């Protein structure tokens, strides 16, 4: 069984690596966007899915990451390769600092505090016009592929995003599987018991916030490079809500769920508009609701369930209880 999954993984990795030579630039751009969103969703999922801190404001960190990259490239002439880790570090700091006071807030109140952050960031970006170009935004050039590789800009960006995604996925998986991950999940499931076990809840929670923001910031920087443009109004609250939709549809507390969610938020709106130009949002809304009916625990949750049934065909009814979302994470 394990070998089969490994083989499937290798095939998928091979397919992902081969895709740039099979698809047009436009399709590559779409998949680059999927990878970028997947990184952002993974970041949000670490915070909301694993640690139980609901954020409605991750668009803000995405914006900070995007602007960090854009300002460094455009104003200071820094090579774009450096801007990606720099955006991650900056967002880690911002996220950690936001996470400290946010410790006092729980559930709904935290969600709405982060929502406020998402509302405020576009305004703040416009205010510091000298750096950010104000409401006009910053136009970038698309990064040139390294010479000698013989790649087009689209292929290069695709590989860059894919590479960053792979590294960050492996890092997240290792982090979440180890001692730290258990502490993070324990805080979500039972904060008092976790504290009793000696978990420094405050530190872990703010660190989780920082890591989560860093992931989303890296995604923002990559997104800015791929689109080659940043503008404050592109990072509105709807972006934050889209991220939330992504992690819930993909599957909370699941590393692979981030990828499923990214595929959903990238492609489903396109299908919706192909069905109806008159009211594409209505179609999208129907998709959302039907998806939630069919898979209340997201795509990763549904797949995990299906897999568990396959593995233990005798226990179809009353099988493992899926109340613990974290158990889905073993898939991926």
């Amino acid at each position, binding site marked *: 069984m394990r070998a089969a999954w490994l083989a499937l993984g290798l095939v998928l990795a091979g397919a992902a690596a081969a895709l740039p030579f099979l698809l047009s630039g436009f399709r590559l751009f779409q998949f680059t966007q999927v990878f970028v969103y997947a990184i952002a969703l993974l970041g949000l999922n670490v915070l*909301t899915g694993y640690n139980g801190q*609901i954020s409605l404001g991750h668009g803000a960190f995405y914006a900070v990451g995007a602007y960090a990259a854009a300002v460094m490239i455009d104003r200071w002439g820094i090579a774009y390769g450096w801007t990606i880790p720099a955006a991650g570090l900056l967002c880690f700091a911002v996220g950690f600092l936001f996470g400290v*006071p946010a410790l*006092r*807030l*729980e*559930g*709904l*109140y935290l*969600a*709405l*505090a982060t*929502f*406020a952050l998402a*509302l*405020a960031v576009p*305004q*703040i970006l*416009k*205010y510091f016009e000298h750096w950010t170009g104000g409401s006009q935004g910053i136009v970038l050039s698309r990064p040139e592929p390294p010479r000698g590789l013989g790649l087009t800009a689209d292929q290069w960006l695709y590989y860059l995003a894919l590479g960053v995604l792979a590294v960050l996925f492996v890092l997240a998986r290792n982090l979440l599987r180890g001692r730290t991950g258990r502490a993070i999940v324990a805080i979500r499931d*039972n904060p*008092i*018991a976790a504290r009793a076990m000696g978990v420094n809840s405050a530190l872990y929670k703010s660190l989780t916030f920082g890591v989560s923001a860093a992931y989303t910031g890296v995604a923002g920087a990559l997104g800015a490079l791929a689109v080659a443009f940043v503008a404050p109004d592109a990072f509105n*609250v709807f972006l934050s*809500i889209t991220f*939330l*939709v992504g992690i*819930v*549809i993909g599957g*909370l507390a699941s590393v692979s769920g981030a990828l499923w969610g990214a595929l959903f938020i990238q492609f489903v709106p396109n299908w919706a508009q192909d069905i109806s130009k*008159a*009211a*594409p*949002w*209505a179609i*999208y*809304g*129907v*998709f*959302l*609701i039907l998806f*939630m*009916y069919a898979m*209340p*625990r997201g795509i990763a949750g549904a797949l995990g369930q299906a897999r568990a049934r396959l593995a233990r065909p005798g226990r179809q009814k009353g099988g493992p209880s899926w109340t613990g*979302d974290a158990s889905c994470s073993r898939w991926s």
Partner: protein
Amino acid sequence: METFLQQVVSGLATGGIYGSLALALVMIYQATDVVNYAQGEMAMFSTYLAWTLINAGAPYWAAFLATLVIAFAGGLLIERVVIRPVENAPILTIVIVCIGLLVILNSLAGWIYSYIQKPFPSPFPSRPIRIGSIVFGAHDLGAIGVTLVVLLLLYLFFRHTTLGLAMRAAAQNPVSSRLCGIRVGWMLAVGWGLAAAVGAVAGMMVAPIVFLDPNMMAGILIYAFASATLGGFTSPGGAVVGGLVVGVVENLAGTYVTFIGTELKLTTALAVILVVLLVKPSGLFGRAAVRRV
């Protein structure tokens, strides 16, 4: 001084708008433990229904009452049909369903009624009221009055009627309530119906001020969230007070914090709310949730 007073008065007027929708949000949260993102769009849609009735020649108050009834039935129906299938799913799943509802209602309203804004009548005199140099609209005053009446009615309903008591019981302890013979599922549905009706009142009070269009409630919903958070999500009165405070604070910040000016008006107001939350994490009038381990 004159500027100050005028800003406070217009802040109260705007804050009344925030408070009325915040009240609907708090209602549904208390009755069902769900923050309904579609609340604003439901209110907007109800207001369009009222507009249709009035345009068809119905007198204002008849249309008003009819809209309340339709909104109540609509809210009930939404809970039974749309929310029911995910009732026992994780809370975020319900949130996503609400977001789905939001985009559907918004898109349908644009499709049916177009995006052209429409004037919506007010039941109050249009002539502004002047006290000294301070001016305020009769409608603004009337709208705050209507919100307070709704608040009072809700208070009486939840305190002194069997149905109200049953709803509170169902929300606080579903299992025991079921044992006492309360039909918990229906109580949730009635909660949605009531919240939809309260939202409809908010919509009909807001529309004469901001005009009727499909995106009418988008901005107001954001402020309603802020108001409910500030007041405390467990306190209907807090939601209304929260709304008024947000309205006034925002106006004063935009006027007097001159080095910031209007460009960071919203940011300033949000920062104030955050600071309040840090001191009182469950809002000004909210109770901290006590959980048994």
